[in-house]
């Protein structure tokens, strides 16, 4: 088993005719992901990479029974693309797009919450279940199937942890990049809950960073609800207050959201926190 995506994933790519969309669709197909449709308004009837293009998500869903959508459209169109996918009844929407205004995401998230759609992202690398489906921009070849579930706010930092695990022969059940924005569709707690229910996930790696208090909330959830062991890492111990560190959500504001607070919260509930990324794989290996 796994979470969110698997071999039954039937994927729509919103923005497949764009440069980014086409490039990553090719990579996803090469990995074995089942892409059933692309959506670009005004280009319905065409095909790209042998994938049929539709004008709307609703048309794509009714023609192909797609159940997951991935979004590669520019930031100014991404909120609309998310809402369209949710309205078409797509169960899981993964938004890769970076730079979506936060005010838009407040409205989008409030609307999504009234539907049965789950949103992952925006500003995330996506979701991969090694050997089954890659729905994102991560390099597929560094992954291998196995017992470790990973959830992270970051992209390359996650690849770093994945590659180190694979190198010592420890595979991953599913790797979820939840994104680095202040308002996102799926948070640590949501993914931890899914991993806890997934029988094949024997260990969870949680990679957080400065800003907000989702890691603290996650620590509380781990204490109350999780039997699966968790290993943590928090980036940004040397980050100065009041400065945005690349990700829109990575900012210490009003003294809140420091790495020190998050590490303390995790350690207090028995989650060991790696000092640097290289330690993550070693710690997991010891604890598996």
């Amino acid at each position, binding site marked *: 088993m796994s979470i969110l995506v698997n071999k039954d994933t039937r994927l729509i790519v919103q923005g497949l005719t764009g440069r980014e969309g086409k490039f*990553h669709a090719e*990579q996803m197909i090469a990995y074995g992901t089942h892409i059933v449709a692309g959506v670009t308004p005004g280009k319905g009837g065409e095909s790209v990479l042998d994938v049929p293009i539709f004008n709307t998500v609703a048309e794509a869903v009714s023609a192909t029974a797609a159940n997951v959508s991935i979004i590669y459209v520019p*930031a*100014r169109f991404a909120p609309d693309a998310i809402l369209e996918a949710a309205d078409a009844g797509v169960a899981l929407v993964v938004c890769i797009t970076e*730079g*979506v*205004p*936060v*005010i*838009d*995401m*407040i*409205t989008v*998230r*409030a609307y999504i919450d009234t539907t049965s759609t789950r949103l992952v992202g925006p500003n995330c690398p996506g979701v991969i279940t090694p050997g089954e489906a890659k729905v994102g*921009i*991560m*390099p597929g*070849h*560094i992954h291998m199937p196995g017992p470790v579930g990973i959830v*992270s*706010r*970051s*992209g*390359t*930092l996650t*690849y*770093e942890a994945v*590659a180190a695990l694979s190198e010592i022969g420890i595979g991953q059940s599913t790797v979820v990049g939840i994104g*680095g924005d*202040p*308002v996102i569709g799926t948070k640590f707690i949501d993914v931890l809950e899914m991993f806890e229910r997934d029988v094949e996930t024997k260990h969870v790696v949680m*990679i957080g*960073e*400065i*800003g*907000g*208090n989702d890691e603290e*909330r996650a620590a509380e959830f781990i204490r109350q609800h999780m039997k699966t062991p968790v290993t943590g*890492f928090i*980036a*940004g*111990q*040397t*980050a*100065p207050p009041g*400065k*945005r*560190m*690349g*990700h*829109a*959500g*990575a900012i210490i504001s*009003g*003294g809140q959201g420091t*790495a020190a607070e998050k590490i303390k919260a995790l350690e207090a509930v028995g989650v060991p926190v790696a000092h*640097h*990324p*290289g330690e993550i794989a070693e710690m997991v290996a010891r604890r598996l």
Partner: protein
Amino acid sequence: MKLHEYQAKRIFARYGVPIPAGEVANTAAQAREIAQRLGKPAVIKSQVLVGGRGKAGGIKVAKTPDEAETLADQILGMEIKGLKVKRVLVDEAADIQDEIYLGMIVDRERRRVAMMASSEGGVDIEEVAATHPDAIKTIYIDPFLGIKPYQAIAVASALGIPPDQTRAFTKIATGLYRAFIESDADLAEINPLAVTGGGQLLAVDGKMVLDDNALFRHPDLEEMRDLAEEAPAETEARINGLSYVKLDGEIGCMVNGAGLAMATMDIVKHFGGSPANFLDIGGGAKSDKVAAALRIILSDPNVKAVLFNIFGGITRCDEVARGILVALEEVKPAVPMVARLVGTNEAEGRAILAEAQMITATTLADAAQKAVAAAKAR
């Protein structure tokens, strides 16, 4: 993007928030003219993008136009937290009887815009939150409904605003919310919202921080950016599409990905060094971008070594390595360089860099230790 006080207050005023009469002066003579026109005692306020202007002596009251000129002359050119004062706001001095705090932020946990108010205005809200959390009234605004009158009335009531001023307060709260939403703000603050001797409410000071991601739809607001207040390296980074934050250390860091960039800074510290910057070159890492990043890092005289940490995913390491070579050719750095390239085509990438006499490393820990040693040797 931070706005100056005068810019924030002008935006608030467009949404019906009352602000004092006043104008901006670039010279002491202009300050005098403005004070003359106001015909009343004036406050001379330095316009720099940092807090604590009053404590630093950057805000003074002038009773006469003569005094306005003298004070403006003192304040213009003074340095506040490293920023030089280039202009002052000359506002009509308000007869302040009471001070209220009114601010809006995005509450990440509740995913709502939150309005916070406190009867203890004029001080930092963080300070109030730490010492008298009960003195803060917070409401959360539904994005589909917007702020409703009953919510503003509840805040007015909690603040003890008299009934005859509740309507005026509601108008201000509504205006501030609209200014926040329609400008795509991260923060909008009136501190203090003064209650004057005549029983009026007046936004005496204002602060606004805008969401950089939304500036594409606000060209008028983007124009308000004060380049003089931005470090030149940060301006160059922004223009080149790089995320850069200057720090105080001596090891320059060039990394792809924000999380990995932070982790790289942290590991430098872990091994006894100190990072000179945060820098995310993003995906792709073409040579022109790498060159721009290298120039920016080396523009900091404290930098004694540069650490490249690249995780090649879909970006290929050999491509990045070639980009680094082109950049080195162009920039010709005088400090040691440590490169750690892993992922797709890493062997080819490393071979390319070894020819360029760069110190190479395979693990991040190894790279960080080598960079720390190289910096200490200088």
